[in-house]
């Protein structure tokens, strides 16, 4: 009797787990056959297989939309796969693309390492590969044709150069606080580096405090609250993305200061809420990190398909925004 009682629930556990496994199994199957009527079209139309990281942010969604729109505009047949933040899914998708004999493969790697084997398979099948947005750390650079994406160091540098220009006339020290992105992430490391290099031009510009706000609004707010209490004189805030800057805005207002006037605010990204804050005069400067690389990607896909040489590193077309430029650009922003 007792044995029965302890046995019964565990059988239920197994049943539930089995059902869960079945569900994920079918989902995976549903995912993988992205189109079986594929194959190299003889009509001369280029087929591009693209594996996206996922849909974790507004930035990423805009990135996906840009690629889809650009593909239909360029007359390229797009096979789109969403890897849902998992490398296994992405490797599976790339293998599928190889089997379907697409003309070009492009993907935004979920992580940096572990791509050599599957990239080698693509190379053996003579399918050129383009990386977008994120790099891989493969030692063998011949595994992919080119890497199209933002230059985070440059974004930091542009932000720093604008500040140096603004504070040219400053006679005394200018106190800067920095809100870093997630510790150890490439955008955080590179933006910090680029910014530090640029402001080295003026010894008056000094970073007096620098903490990680994890790229989130809540993080940015919490860190800025303590910065404001610990440092009576803060002249400039440099945030590694708009969201941390938006969080910091609330902390600055709560401290009785006027954002954009008492404290100059510089951020990176230019998402919609950030652009709105810039147009409202709460931010002072944004270095864009554009997700709209679709048209550039289609151009590249055509070139590598025709066997043309392309540079190994191509930067996304990006710009910077001041308050006036933000007011003009805001109505046409896509994300």
């Amino acid at each position, binding site marked *: 009797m007792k044995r029965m009682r302890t046995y*019964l*629930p*565990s059988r*239920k*556990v197994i049943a*539930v787990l089995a059902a*869960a496994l079945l569900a994920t199994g079918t989902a995976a199957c549903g995912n993988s056959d992205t189109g079986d009527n594929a194959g190299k079209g003889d009509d001369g139309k280029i087929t591009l297989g693209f594996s996206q990281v996922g*849909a*974790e*942010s*507004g930035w*990423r*969604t805009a990135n996906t939309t840009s690629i889809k729109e650009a593909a239909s505009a360029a007359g390229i047949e797009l096979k789109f796969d969403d890897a849902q933040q998992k490398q296994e899914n992405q490797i599976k998708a790339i293998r599928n693309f190889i089997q379907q004999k697409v003309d070009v493969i492009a993907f935004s790697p979920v992580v940096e390492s572990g791509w050599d084997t599957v990239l080698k398979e693509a190379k053996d099948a003579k399918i050129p590969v383009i990386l977008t947005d994120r790099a891989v750390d493969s030692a063998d650079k011949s595994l992919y044709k080119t890497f199209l994406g933002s230059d985070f160091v440059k974004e930091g540098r542009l932000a720093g150069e604008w500040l140096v220009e603004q504070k040219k006339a400053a006679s005394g020290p200018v106190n800067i606080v920095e809100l*870093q992105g997630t*510790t*150890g992430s490439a955008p955080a490391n590179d933006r910090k580096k680029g910014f530090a290099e640029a402001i080295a031009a003026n010894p008056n510009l000094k970073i007096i*405090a*620098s*903490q*990680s706000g*994890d*790229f*989130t*609004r*809540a*993080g940015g*707010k*919490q*860190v800025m*609250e*303590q*910065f404001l*209490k*610990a440092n009576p004189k803060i002249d400039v805030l440099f945030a590694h993305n708009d*969201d941390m800057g*938006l*969080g910091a805005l*609330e902390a600055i207002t*709560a*401290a*009785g200061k006027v954002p954009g006037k008492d404290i100059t605010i510089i951020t990176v990204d230019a998402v919609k*809420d950030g652009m709105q804050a810039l147009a409202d005069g709460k931010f002072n400067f944004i270095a864009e990190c554009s997700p709209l690389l679709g048209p550039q990607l289609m151009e590249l896909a055509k070139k590598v398909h025709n066997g043309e040489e392309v540079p190994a590193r191509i930067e996304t077309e990006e710009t910077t925004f001041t308050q006036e430029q933000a007011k003009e650009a805001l109505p046409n922003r896509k994300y």
Partner: protein
Amino acid sequence: MSNRTAGYRALTTHRLFWPIVVLVVLLAANTVYRPGFLSVQMRDGHLYGSLIDILRLSAPLILVALGMTLVIATGGIDLSVGSLCAISGAIACLHISEQPDQNSVGGVLTALALGLGVALVLGAWNGVLVAVIGIQPIIATLILMVAGRGLAQLITEGQILTINSDPYKAIGVGHLLTLPLAIFIALAAALVVAAFTRRTALGLIIESVGGNAQASRLAGIRSARITFLVYVISAACAAVAGFMMTANVSSADGNAAGLWVELDAILAVVIGGTSLAGGRFSLGGTILGALLIQTLTTTVYAMNISPQTSLLFKAVVVIAVCLIQAPGFRARFARRRPSAAAPAPVTEQPKEQVPA
């Protein structure tokens, strides 16, 4: 004299003594680093200072940890609270964003009811999985921990949903009697839970279920019903915490809201002296644990400890708190100290036995 040492021993062996000491040390270290740390000023009709920030920011963690305390007291664990925070916050913000007038109190109240309602349903789902179907709590709640975050992102469509509603914002940053409103909400929840668990038999019953569910059932307690109940309470606490988190920044971020708060809550419960094996719990200890964790986070920012070393710093403090609380670890040191005086009678005893 002996009275005083006994009193001293009673004080130092009290399970909340060491967490309080660590909290005081942290505050003292902050004051040494920056003398103005403890100062609190009046600004715009409310108090303003780092201490007030700690109170306000610890409120969501206190709430989540309260629910977690009850769950852990029954010998379970609830990993889904972080995702529930994100879901309830996202639902509330979505409803408010669809209102023609985001400042209408009625709209905000509906939004809160919706968010809370969905959280209660999800809490009931956890409760059914654990209490009725008998899945181990860590697995049962893991389902919602993973799937729930996806659900929150679905609700916000993967975007950060910004709202502009003063009544909702008040939950996160409003003030009452010059102090943050959030801390009053958290303390009110704590009082309600304390009243039900310590003024009625409910607390005892929860502890008995945690001690031995089977024996409690045979003794006439409806164990399954109690287990189900604590998961629903935990979900309700998480929902209110989710409102605070999203109100604090006036936006719902399905990806980041309440991320890892379940782990902080478990830590707060453990620091507060509640046994992870179940059968015993301390609400006061949990609140103290939550305050300690938030003070630790604020200390990192206030003392500008570099982000690369801040996790190590937190780890060292937490390990220290857990070690000095551990009976086994304390016993080693307690035995060593009196050993200077104690060995004498121990060696004398066998001597006396020889002539006898």
